[in-house]
C-alpha cells in the first residue's frame, strides 16, 4: 500500500501532515514515521514543506540549510552579538587620535587596549559594518529570508487556494474551536445550513458550499502579510547593497570660506560660499524672559551658496570652467538640492582671521596716514601699492608662526592661526625699509624708520562646513520600508477566519480557525449558534 495514500483515495506528497483533500491527519504509524502526537499545527495547513523531505543533491542541502528557521534565528543572534561586541571599543572612524594609515590604526588598538585590542582589530571589529564576515552574515540573513519565505509561502498558497470543504471529521474535531450537537437534536440540515450561510454572508464571509457542508472564510489575504513583509525587507537589504555601486552613494564634507569656491571631492561640482550668517533669537521673540547672561540662542545657520559644474573636470587640477547650476540659501534641514546631490549646512567656524589691516604712517610728516595696507591671509599679494610712490612687498609669510629648532621662523600648520609677515616698504624717493608683523605688533629693522604700520581692526570671515550627500538607493530603501509596512498592516489588522459547519452522522459539527484573535472568532461563532438556536456548545482547546 502506498503510504502516502489517504483513505479518501487522495495521494499526498511525502511530508504531508493533513490530507490535502479530506483534511484527515496522515496516518504516520503505517509509514513507520513517528506518530503525530497531536493534531498538526495549522500554520502551514498541514502541507508538506519540500525542503524537509528532499535532500538529494548539494543544491537541495544548501537550500534546506537556509530554509531552517532555527538557522535564521542563529544568524540573527550571531549578528546581534557581533554588533554588540563592535561597541566595546570605538570604531575606526571614532578613535580619538588622527591616524591615517592602516598600520597606525592597527598600532592604536594594540597600544590602547593591549592583547584584546589586537584581537579586536585582527577580527575586523574596528570597522564592523564593512568587515567581510559581517557582510557575509547579512547576506546569509537575506538568503535565509528568501528561502524560508519561498519554502513556506508556496505550499501555503496551494493549500489556501483549495478551500477545505467537506473535510474528514477528525479535521474538524482537531480544530481549536469545535462543538457538535447531540444526535437526537432536531436540526434540519437542509434549512440550517442555508440559514447559517445567510447569516455569515451578512457578516462579510465568503462562502463555499456543498450539500451538507459549509465553509465561511474571511480575510485570507492577511495570511500573506508576513511574506509581503519579508519582500519589503529583501528590497530594503537590496537597497543597502546598491550603495556600494560606484556613483550611487556619496558622503563628503567641505569647509568653504566666505567668498571662496571649492571643489567637491569625487564630483565635477564646485560650491561657492557667497556669505554666511548665524541669526539669533531676539528677546522680543521669546515667549518668556530667559536669563541668558549675555548669551544668545541661534535661530538659523545659513550659507548663501552657488553650485557650479566644472566643464573641464576630465583632468584633475586643471583650471576649472565653471557654469552655475544652482543658487540659493542653505539652512539646517533645508539643503540645496541639485539633481541627486544634496548640500547640507552642517558646521561653522565663525570670526576667523581673514585679512590683516594696517594704516601706513609717514613718521617724517608727523605720523600722517599716507595709505592703508590689507594682507589677505589666504592669498596675500606679493606686492601692492599703498600710496602714490609707496609699495609694500611681502618677503615672507608664515601663517602659523613658530620659531623653528634651527632658529629660523617656520609655520606649524598651513592655517593662519598666528600669521607672521616680513614686509618691505619702498618709496619712489629711494627709501627701503623692512618690517616684521608678528602677534599683533610691528617691528622695524631700522632705528629711525620713515614709515610705520599701525595695526587696524582685521577682517573676520566665517567658514561654513557643508555636507554633500548623494544617495540613489534611498527610493529603493523607502519602497522596501513601505512594502514592509503594508505587510505588517495586512498581517496585524486583519485575521484569516474560517468557520466550518458540517452535517454528518446525524450531528451538526461546528469548527473554527483563525490566525489570531481567537476571542473574536469565538464570539462570532457563539453569536451564530445563538441566532440559529442550535444545541451546540463550543469547546476551545488549550489557551487562546
Amino acid at each position, binding site marked *: 500500500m502506498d503510504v502516502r495514500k489517504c483513505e479518501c483515495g487522495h495521494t499526498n506528497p511525502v511530508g504531508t501532515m493533513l490530507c490535502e483533500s479530506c483534511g484527515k491527519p496522515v496516518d504516520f504509524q503505517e509509514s513507520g514515521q513517528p506518530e503525530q502526537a497531536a493534531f498538526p499545527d495549522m500554520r502551514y495547513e498541514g502541507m508538506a514543506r519540500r525542503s524537509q523531505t528532499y535532500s538529494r543533491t548539494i543544491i*537541495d542541502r544548501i537550500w534546506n540549510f537556509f530554509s531552517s528557521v532555527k538557522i535564521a534565528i542563529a544568524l540573527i543572534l550571531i549578528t546581534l552579538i557581533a554588533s554588540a561586541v563592535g561597541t566595546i571599543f570605538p570604531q575606526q572612524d571614532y578613535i580619538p587620535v588622527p591616524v591615517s594609515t592602516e598600520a597606525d590604526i592597527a598600532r592604536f588598538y594594540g597600544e590602547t587596549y593591549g592583547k584584546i585590542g589586537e584581537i579586536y582589530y585582527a577580527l575586523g571589529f574596528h570597522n564592523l559594518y564593512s568587515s567581510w564576515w559581517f*557582510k*557575509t552574515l547579512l547576506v546569509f540573513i537575506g538568503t535565509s529570508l528568501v528561502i524560508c519565505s519561498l519554502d513556506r509561502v508556496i505550499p501555503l498558497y496551494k493549500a489556501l487556494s483549495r478551500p477545505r470543504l467537506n473535510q474528514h471529521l477528525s479535521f474538524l474535531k482537531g480544530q481549536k474551536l469545535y462543538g457538535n450537537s447531540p444526535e437526537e437534536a432536531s436540526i434540519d440540515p437542509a434549512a440550517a445550513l442555508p440559514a447559517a450561510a445567510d447569516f455569515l454572508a451578512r457578516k462579510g464571509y465568503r462562502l463555499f458550499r456543498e450539500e451538507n457542508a459549509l465553509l465561511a472564510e474571511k480575510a485570507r489575504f492577511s495570511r500573506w502579510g508576513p511574506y509581503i513583509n519579508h519582500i519589503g525587507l529583501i528590497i530594503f537589504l537590496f537597497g543597502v547593497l546598491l550603495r556600494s555601486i560606484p556613483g550611487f552613494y556619496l558622503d563628503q564634507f567641505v569647509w568653504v570660506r566666505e567668498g571662496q569656491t571649492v571643489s567637491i571631492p*569625487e564630483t565635477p561640482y564646485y560650491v561657492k560660499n557667497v556669505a554666511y550668517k548665524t541669526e539669533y533669537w531676539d528677546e522680543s521673540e521669546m515667549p518668556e524672559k530667559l536669563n541668558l547672561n549675555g548669551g544668545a540662542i541661534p535661530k538659523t545657520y545659513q550659507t548663501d551658496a552657488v553650485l557650479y559644474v566644472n566643464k573641464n573636470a576630465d583632468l*584633475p*587640477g586643471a583650471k576649472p570652467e565653471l557654469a552655475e547650476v544652482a543658487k540659493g540659501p542653505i539652512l539646517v534641514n533645508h539643503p540645496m538640492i541639485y539633481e541627486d546631490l544634496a548640500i547640507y549646512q552642517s558646521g561653522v567656524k565663525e570670526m576667523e582671521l581673514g585679512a590683516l589691516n594696517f594704516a601706513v604712517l609717514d613718521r617724517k610728516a608727523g605720523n600722517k596716514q599716507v595709505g592703508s595696507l590689507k594682507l589677505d591671509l589666504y592669498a*596675500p599679494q*606679493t606686492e601692492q601699492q599703498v600710496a602714490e610712490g609707496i609699495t609694500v612687498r*611681502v618677503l615672507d609669510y608664515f601663517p602659523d608662526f613658530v620659531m623653528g629648532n634651527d632658529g629660523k621662523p617656520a609655520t606649524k600648520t598651513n592655517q593662519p592661526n598666528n600669521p607672521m609677515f616680513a614686509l618691505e616698504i619702498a618709496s619712489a624717493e629711494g627709501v627701503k625699509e623692512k618690517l616684521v608683523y608678528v602677534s599683533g605688533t610691528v617691528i622695524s629693522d631700522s632705528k629711525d624708520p620713515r614709515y610705520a604700520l599701525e595695526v587696524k581692526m582685521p577682517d573676520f570671515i566665517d567658514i561654513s562646513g557643508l555636507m554633500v550627500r548623494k544617495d540613489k538607493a534611498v527610493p529603493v530603501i523607502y519602497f522596501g520600508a513601505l512594502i514592509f509596512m503594508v505587510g505588517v498592516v495586512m498581517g496585524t489588522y486583519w485575521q484569516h477566519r474560517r468557520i466550518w459547519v458540517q452535517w454528518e452522522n446525524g450531528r451538526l459539527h461546528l469548527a473554527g480557525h483563525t490566525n489570531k484573535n481567537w476571542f473574536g472568532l469565538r464570539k462570532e461563532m457563539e453569536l451564530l449558534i445563538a441566532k440559529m438556536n442550535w444545541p451546540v456548545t463550543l469547546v476551545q482547546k488549550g489557551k487562546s
Partner: protein
Amino acid sequence: MNTTKRTSIRVAILGVLLIAFVFALYTSFVKDPHQVKAGNAAPNFSLPQLNGTPMKLSDLKGKAVVLNFWGSWCEPCKAEMPALQKQYETNKDKGLVVVGVNIGETPVAVQSFIEQYGAKFPILLDRDLQITKLYRIGPIPTTFFIDREGEIEEIYIGQMTDAIIAQKVAQILE
C-alpha cells in the same frame, strides 16, 4: 513539480543570492576603488607652477618622475629638500624630473620656503587640495616614484635620505 525543474529553480535563486554575496564581499575588500597603488598608472593631473604656468603630469611621459607632496610646516619635508635637489641635479640629464606638490599654501609662503631650502625643481601649487585628495595623501612627506611609462614603481611615506632617493631613482631611470 518534477525534480529537474525544482533543482533548476533552486539553482537560479541561489545563483542570484550568490552574486549578491560576491558583490558584498568584493566591496568589503576593495574599500577604495580609486586608491593609488604601486604598479598602477599614476593618475594624470594639471596644476599651476609657482610662476603661474600649468604643468601636466602627462607632459612628463618618457621621463622618470619623483612626485613629492610636501608642506612648509612639515619638518621631515624640510629635511629631505636638499637631498631631492641633489638627486635632481645629478640625474636631470638622464631624464629625471623631481616635482614638488605643495599642499594648500600661498605662493608667497612657498616662494620664501623654496628660496630658503634651495629647491630648484618645479614646484606645483595644489591650492584647494584636489590632487592631494586624488592621490590619497595621508602623512607627509609622501613620495611617488613614477617610471618612464607613467607607472608608479613605489610609494614612500616619510622622510628619505640621500641614499634612499638615489636607489629608487636608479630603479625608475632604468
